[in-house]
């Protein structure tokens, strides 16, 4: 599903932040991505959700070489990827319902086509009573679950999460992990970038460790 081969990335004329990164994410797998701050986790995620092109190497997503793909074809690939950002990136002028429905709207679906699905999903993540609330009045956990609901509403094949438990208490962290595990059981490939060792210990999923721009796999 996801294949990196000797991928390198540098910003401008600076040093390489990722060096010869190679790994494979099988369909339906669950992995953690960890490493110290500044190791290149966010850069790797940016490559994965197509916010950045590599300086060198091959990146294959869903069987497509995205490293050299024309930008007009990238949205179709992005629709197969759900992203949960550490800082949530919710749109403050839209309600929880509208934030979660956004991926469906960009696909041209009308409200009557997705209304029930979105409400059901919000119930599933425990936000059934907050559908008309705006992000500024949500708690950190509610924002996190809204971001997760938005990431999964389009039934992505690949779910990427950047420090999803960074802003929530341990209890909510465990709950979110259960949520990711459920999604994985439904067939979604999951990669979670985290520093949270407790989270990784609970899951026992294999890890990729990034250090100084180089990656090693820990089964």
């Amino acid at each position, binding site marked *: 599903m996801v294949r990196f081969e000797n991928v390198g990335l540098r910003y401008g004329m600076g040093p390489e932040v990722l060096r010869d990164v190679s790994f494979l994410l099988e369909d339906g797998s669950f992995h953690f991505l960890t490493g110290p701050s500044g190791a290149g986790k966010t850069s790797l995620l940016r490559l994965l959700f*197509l916010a950045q092109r590599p300086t060198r190497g091959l990146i294959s997503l869903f069987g497509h070489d995205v490293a050299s793909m024309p930008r007009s074809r990238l949205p179709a690939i*992005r629709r197969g990827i759900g992203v949960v950002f550490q800082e949530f990136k919710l749109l403050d*002028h839209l309600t929880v319902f*509208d934030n979660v429905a956004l*991926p469906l*709207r*960009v696909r041209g679906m009308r*409200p009557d086509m997705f209304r029930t699905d979105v409400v059901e999903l919000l119930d599933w993540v425990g936000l*059934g009573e907050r*559908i008309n609330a705006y992000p500024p009045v949500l708690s950190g956990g509610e924002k996190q679950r809204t971001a997760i609901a938005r990431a999964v509403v389009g039934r992505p094949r690949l779910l990427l999460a950047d420090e999803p438990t960074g802003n929530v208490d341990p209890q909510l962290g465990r709950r979110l992990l259960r949520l990711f595990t459920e999604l994985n059981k439904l067939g979604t490939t999951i990669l979670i970038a985290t520093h949270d060792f407790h989270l990784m210990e609970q899951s026992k999923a294999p890890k990729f460790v990034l250090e100084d721009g180089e990656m090693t796999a820990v089964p």
Partner: protein
Amino acid sequence: MTVNSQDKKRAGALAGNLAMRLPQLQWRRRNVAIMPDVGAAGKPLMVVISVMSFLACLALGGLVIINRSVNDWTRDMASQVTVQIKPEAKADSAKKVATALRILRATPGVTNAVALSREDSLKLLEPWLGAGALLQELPVPLLINVTISKRRPPDLATLSAELTRAVPGARLDDHNRWQKQILRATGAFRIFGYGVLLLVSAATIAIVVFATRAAMSSNRDVVEVLHFVGARDNFIAVQVQRHFLSVALKAGVIGGFAGFLTFAALRGLLASPRDADGGVSAGQLLLGAAQFGIADYSLFLFVPLATALISVVTARLAVLRILGHVL
């Protein structure tokens, strides 16, 4: 309780829950705007586009009046020529006028020839010289007003030569010099009018480009999220266009209505009654015989449409250009 019945109970509860809350969402028949109204793309933009639309109305109305006046003037001038005969002794003058009239009426293409009396000629000079004794002493030329066929006009050069030969002191004035001067002057006004329209359009485009950039800059996070959830450039452009369409239509209507009021007020102010002597009104002196008619106001309906079209196309191109620089 079996697993199956538990599932059914949960499904029933969920359905009940949904049924209770769906009415809150039923009003969402239409999608809410993804791009918030902010910064320069909001009210300030509406004010500026309103002013531009108003200026466009003024230029458009001016062009209509100029074009109509030119048509009226040139039509009248093309069908009228004048024969002037130097004044001499009364008996000679009458003889010369009679000869000239005979030649004129016998010329194919001349539909009418009427000699003006000395009194009528003096009246033409009164607005400039007054009605005093001085006017009576002036050697005013004898005038013959000649109407010619527009379809088959006479050969004016031959007619002029014949008149000069038969009637010493006679001169045929075909108003060609005036016609050329008027056409030159009105041509300049026309160019000026079109130039103003062009400038207003260019200024509107520049303003919309600036506002689009400002809107895209202040909504960078929105655009970024839209990209991440798989929005194509066209979808993002449509969101921005929708906002600019709404602003430009409202601004165009405001500017168009202001233009309508201005021309209606001008029409009222300038359409003063003729003066006591039957002379032209101030409005006619300024604008000629042409007036801004009721049907001409319908032109102002195109102003909001043109404003909206210019704004939407400009915003779309600006957005696509900006998006082309991001991955």
